[in-house]
């Protein structure tokens, strides 16, 4: 009988693979009202921190609402 080429993974290997995919999974920056997950950019911005960007966006949007 021909031997199956498919290898059954052990519980330890399954846990290791699951861990890898969790580590490599893209981080989510936020979710839109329509349900789309906006992914966090992989690197940092050159000229400002994430908090500085969020603050600047809030400032501009607040000024437009006023």
């Amino acid at each position, binding site marked *: 009988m021909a031997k199956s080429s498919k290898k059954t993974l052990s519980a330890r290997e399954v846990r290791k693979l699951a861990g890898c995919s969790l580590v490599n999974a893209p981080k989510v920056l936020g979710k839109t009202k*329509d349900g*789309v997950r*906006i992914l966090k950019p992989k690197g940092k911005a050159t000229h400002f921190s994430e908090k500085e*960007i*969020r603050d*600047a*966006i809030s400032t501009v949007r607040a000024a*437009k609402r006023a």
Partner: protein
Amino acid sequence: MSDKDVFINCPFSPDYEEFFQAIVFTVVRSGYTPRCARENDDGGEARIEKICRIIGECRYGVHDISNTELDAASGLPRFNMPLELGLFLGARNFGPKRSRKKALIFDRQKYRYQQFISDIAGQDIHAHEGKIDRLVEEIATWFRDEAGDARVPGGRAIAAEFKRFQVDLPDILRVRKLEPQELTFKDFHMVAANWIVADNGDP
């Protein structure tokens, strides 16, 4: 390779900047991560090595081969976009997961490419006609179809959002005392992603 990473292959010239920003915005709004040769400035990595590495890490590619004009100074065309498209198609054909890489290819008109790069005949070439709205609509429709996710908004909605973002962007940069010309790809990506979340998130 990431199922969410998208390699962007287009001109990096000032006259194409608005198109480039529209591509990045649409990719982010569709729930993907844009990647390109501009993403880091590591002098130790040769440019072609960097491009090959990024292509290897991306499942999707958005390629605009419409820039066929001759350079005013040299009188020669730029060949970088066709070269990078060739690398991407090569990776798709010879790579370990060759059936998984997918390319969205743009030219200005639908069949114009046959006059300068006829070997790619048989691919479905999309035409943006030099219009930002058309480019955004085509990209959004393609990703909506690829993701099979009806939550991703349609191209016209994203094009309208991009226009609002373009109005806000100079003001955001002014708050940070930055000129638009100083904005790097990483800056733009971070600003666009945070603006989309602020604009579309729950209050």
